[in-house]
């Protein structure tokens, strides 16, 4: 093996740093470090001549490791690393530190101390650089196809975008018809237009203009090239990993041949079986062979296998003019190979029977908003008439109750977010059709936060809809008058009201769609506390999940109105396309690696890995060892911080590298103050230090910063080693506990720090010598303050004298 030759490049930032740091001393110090083959000082190294110096040194084989002390560490690192790579050096053999923001600026009041610290920082970088190992790039192929689960508006919009972009797309819908909840809703607020309207695919150049939006049935949705629609189907198994999923779909028989049915309706006229129509709020009956409403998609009848008499009857078979009815169809298993999956399973209306005091399960004239929507719909079971289901008389006194089972800690604590607007829409539609109707909305808070939504509320008041601020305590049916009585306090009047109603409508909570939990388990993705699918990051990755290549959109993440759903769907399509377009995942092998010889199969690491990247594989008879998936591993080191036998290492942060760095940082003091090692995560923790320096906040130079991938990598023994190496205090600086870039790293670090403090106390070492801090970039002042406080605290405590430690 070739000798390791370190090149050290010292930037004085246009002579700015020289006014504080003694560069001659630094150069002399660095020159004496074994392994250093080249020391160069210049004004800057991240561009122009400076960068060329580095490139030439690499090309001329003068050096095999690069240490650059430069300001603008993040930007300069990108430039230097790229140049080094182009010059033929593995990019992981470059170490960049920031002598400006981490040393000169924050210690400008004590220049000689700053110089001593700079020596330690350089030594640490050199010692680490000597131990660095090249890391290779990995490529994982991706199948360029996508499965969209759910055929509501979110799923359709996403699928259409993807297919339009030339990606082979499958859409799987569990019910026999597309459209989801939206088709039952009839109209959308705040425009009152048709719910079944979607954006038309751009691929149809003949009929589609830029402004086209069309009903589902005339959108040409089924005709988009690359799009395969599977209705009456559900996902039953998902295997494989990112980029290459094998999905098993169960397609239930429709018993009607989709390519033969002409939708003539003769079959329903002869079908002898009639059952309450769930789709239409049980307000009418439907046959065993049916379509939900006219103009559904696909426009093909389906047989309800739970009620059909099949061959005992077979009247539909006889009458069908195209021989489309096939009573012997069987369910099929279809296997799809896809690179990506988009979950668009939406949400559903909660059964409000749980709120017993409203008697939804007992009183037929208590209905839900979605059931009311069917009544209002001209295609619906009552042809638009608002009736009392108990006797089918017209209902003219209507009370709508908001937040039923929603914002209710007994059931669903969240605000379902769209019910206020739905109720306003229904109230206005009723009022426009029947101006004499008396419509009252009982509410806790009216939430009309969307664009134009407040005007909608205003219009409702204009139309004479009554609003009672108060949540009813009970609905009582008075057998004498056959009226429903709603007990409610009007809080504004402070008056207890007994509202009489023909019909009471419950704005029932919107809850995760049935099967959400099973699907999440199958896909290995998380749910939030309310049971909806959890996005990776609500602000930055609103359609992504922790599983690369699995995306979310629409109401599957939370109840959404149509515009937001659409926005979300298009965004998911973009992210999925971006993921698939490269045809491969390119990733550095900046990952954890297990040393099988030492792994004892304690199975602690797989449960701590936030990415599900660690599995156990059989090794010999009845023995297992952990194995890391390079594809899924994000390189945080939380597993390293867990492993009780140190059988796991990160390729880019080996224990020997960290140890060498740590020892070097405390090898030089020169400040007369107690040495403090600040172990900062490479994300928020380190950038908080950057920002304190950038803002020239002052803190003492005895504070030495050591960058680690994530504080989750730190083990308790690292703290002990630090004290043994001469640190008088240790600060662990990580992300906020709920803002950790690796999800759980800083929480785990916090717990390790807490336990280590208990341990230190037993060792007779003051626990306050070890502190955990959680910071974000903008809290640089907090870092400076914490560093000062720690220094003062340690000065008060006096020197830590570890005895008998040789």
């Amino acid at each position, binding site marked *: 093996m070739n000798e390791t030759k370190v090149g050290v490049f010292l930037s004085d930032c246009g002579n700015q740093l020289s006014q504080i740091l003694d560069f001659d001393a630094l150069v002399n110090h660095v020159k004496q470090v074994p392994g250093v083959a080249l020391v160069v000082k210049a004004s800057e190294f991240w561009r122009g001549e400076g960068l060329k110096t580095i490139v030439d040194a690499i090309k001329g084989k003068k050096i095999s490791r690069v240490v650059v002390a430069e300001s603008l560490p993040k930007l300069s690192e990108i430039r230097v690393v790229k140049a080094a790579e182009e010059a033929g050096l593995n990019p992981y053999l470059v170490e960049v530190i920031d002598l400006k923001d981490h040393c000169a600026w924050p210690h400008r009041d004590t220049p000689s101390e700053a110089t001593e610290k700079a020596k330690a920082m350089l030594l640490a970088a050199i010692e680490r650089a000597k131990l660095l190992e090249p890391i290779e790039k990995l490529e994982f192929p991706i199948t360029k196809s996508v499965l969209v689960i759910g055929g509501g508006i979110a799923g359709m919009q996403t699928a259409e975008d993807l297919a339009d972009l030339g990606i082979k797309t499958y859409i799987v819908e569990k019910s026999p018809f597309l459209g989801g909840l939206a088709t039952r809703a009839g109209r959308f607020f705040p425009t009152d237009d048709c719910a079944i309207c979607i954006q038309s695919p751009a691929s149809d150049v003949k009929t589609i203009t830029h402004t086209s939006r069309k009903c589902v049935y005339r959108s040409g949705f089924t005709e988009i090239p690359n799009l395969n629609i599977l209705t009456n189907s559900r996902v039953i198994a998902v295997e494989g990993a990112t980029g290459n999923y094998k999905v098993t779909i169960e397609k239930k028989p429709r018993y009607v041949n989709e390519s033969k049915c002409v939708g003539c309706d003769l079959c329903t006229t002869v079908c002898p079986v009639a059952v309450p129509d769930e789709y239409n709020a049980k307000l009418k009956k439907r046959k065993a062979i049916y379509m939900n409403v006219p103009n559904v998609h696909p426009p093909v009848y389906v047989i309800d296998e739970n009620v059909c008499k099949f061959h005992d009857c077979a009247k539909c078979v006889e009458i069908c003019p195209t021989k489309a009815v096939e009573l012997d169809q069987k369910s099929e298993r279809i296997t799809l190979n896809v690179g990506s999956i988009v979950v668009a399973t939406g949400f559903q209306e909660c059964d409000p029977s749980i709120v017993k005091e409203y008697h939804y399960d007992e009183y037929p004239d208590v209905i839900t908003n979605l059931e009311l929507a069917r009544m209002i719909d001209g295609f619906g079971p009552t042809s638009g008439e608002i009736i009392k289901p108990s006797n089918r008389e017209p209902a003219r006194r209507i009370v709508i109750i908001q937040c039923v089972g929603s914002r209710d800690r007994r059931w669903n604590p969240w605000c379902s977010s769209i019910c206020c607007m739905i109720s306003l829409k229904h109230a206005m539609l009723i009022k426009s059709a029947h101006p004499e109707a008396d419509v009252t909305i009982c509410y806790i808070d009216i939430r009309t936060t969307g664009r134009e939504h407040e005007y909608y509320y205003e219009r409702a008041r204009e139309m004479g809809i009554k609003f009672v601020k108060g949540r009813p305590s009970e609905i009582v049916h008075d057998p004498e008058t056959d009226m429903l009585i709603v007990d409610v306090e009007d809080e504004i009047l402070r008056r207890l009201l007994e509202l009489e109603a023909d019909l009471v409508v419950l704005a029932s909570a919107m809850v995760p769609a049935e099967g959400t939990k099973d699907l999440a388990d199958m896909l290995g993705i998380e749910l939030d506390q309310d049971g909806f699918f959890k996005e990776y990051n609500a602000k930055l990755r609103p359609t992504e999940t922790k599983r690369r290549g699995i995306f979310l959109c629409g109401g599957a993440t939370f109840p959404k109105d149509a515009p937001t759903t659409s926005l979300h769907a298009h965004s998911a399509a973009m992210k999925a396309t971006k993921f698939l377009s490269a045809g491969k995942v390119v990733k550095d092998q900046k990952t954890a690696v297990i040393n099988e010889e030492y792994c004892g199969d304690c199975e602690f690491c797989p449960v701590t890995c936030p990415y599900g990247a660690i599995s156990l594989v059989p090794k010999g008879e009845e023995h297992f060892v952990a194995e890391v998936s390079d594809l899924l591993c994000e390189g945080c080191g939380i597993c390293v911080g867990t492993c009780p036998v140190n059988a796991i290492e990160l390729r880019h942060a080996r224990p020997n590298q960290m140890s060498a760095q740590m020892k070097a940082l405390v090898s030089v003091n020169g400040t007369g103050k107690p040495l403090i090692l600040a172990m900062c995560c490479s994300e928020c923790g380190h950038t908080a230090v950057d920002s304190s320096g950038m803002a020239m906040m002052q803190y003492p130079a005895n504070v030495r910063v050591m960058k680690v991938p994530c504080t989750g990598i730190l083990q308790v*023994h690292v703290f002990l080693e630090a004290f043994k190496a001469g640190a008088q205090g240790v600060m662990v600086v990580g992300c906020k506990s709920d803002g950790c870039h690796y999800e759980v790293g800083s929480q785990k670090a916090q717990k390790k720090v807490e336990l*280590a403090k208990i341990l230190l106390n037993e060792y007779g070492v003051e626990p306050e010598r070890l502190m955990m801090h959680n910071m974000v970039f903008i809290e640089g002042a907090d870092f400076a303050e914490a560093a000062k406080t720690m220094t003062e605290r340690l000065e008060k405590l006096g020197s830590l004298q570890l005895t008998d430690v040789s």
Partner: protein
Amino acid sequence: MEKLKIAFYWAASCGGCEIAVLDVNEKILDVVAKADIVFWPVAIDIKYKDVEAMPDKSIDACFFNGAIRTEENERIAKLLREKSKILVAFGSCACDGCVKGLANLWNKETIFQRAYFETPSTKNPELVTPQTSVSVKEGELELPEFYDTVKTLAQTVDVDYFISGCPPPISCIIQVFEGFISGNLPPKGSSFLPNKSICDECPREKKEHSITEIKRIYEIEDDFKTCFWDQQVICMGPATRAGCGAQCPKVNIPCTGCGGPGPRVADQGAAMISAMASIATDPSVIEQVVDPIGTFYKYSLANSILRRKVIK
């Protein structure tokens, strides 16, 4: 072929390691067939001066059990090092300090105070404590100096091989003896225990490992199947070197860690603490840890990073 010369010695130890040597049963006959035992205070009457008289490196292998607690322990360790070609740290005391190492939470003064004055069973009206020398009418009596800190053998002299355990597992002892007889030895510095942890040998099933509280063994109804960690009981198995065949977990006792740390671990207690903190679901679990040193460093305090308590 000339017979091998071997020696056994106990320093600060309980004697269990000596028993363990005999627990190899008939294998001991193979040993004595091939080797002469030249020094074994517990079994044969050979004095220190006899050892001092032996030529340097004349003992082929010395199996040294016990920690270094007194001046005598240290002196004999050095003596045996000189006289032996191969020195084996035998058992947890020699390797890691073992239970004796827990004395490092005190020093000589506090230990004497407790042992000779304070314990309920002590009656010591004349306030007698051990002295290194005392004159009696028969002459001068000497006792070895009692040190403040318990050390491991390797912290005192250069050690060739290690075999930990309290006592070392019989199968590993047999392996050691066979290695010596056959001359087939691993590289210097090796241990005769496997490189993996107890979990590798433990038949218990591991599940979610999500620790919501800490329970003592008497607080659970052990199902004999599930990993103790999944039953909320602290078990040192994950941080302890294998070799014993998970004897304790197999009979309803969580591992207490006598095998010492894994080969790549500098601090057994800290390693277990890190792992435990990483799987604790809630910070309140951490607060439930009492006596962390007694729990996590029962056998390895003297061989840990900090080694002893700072006493001001």
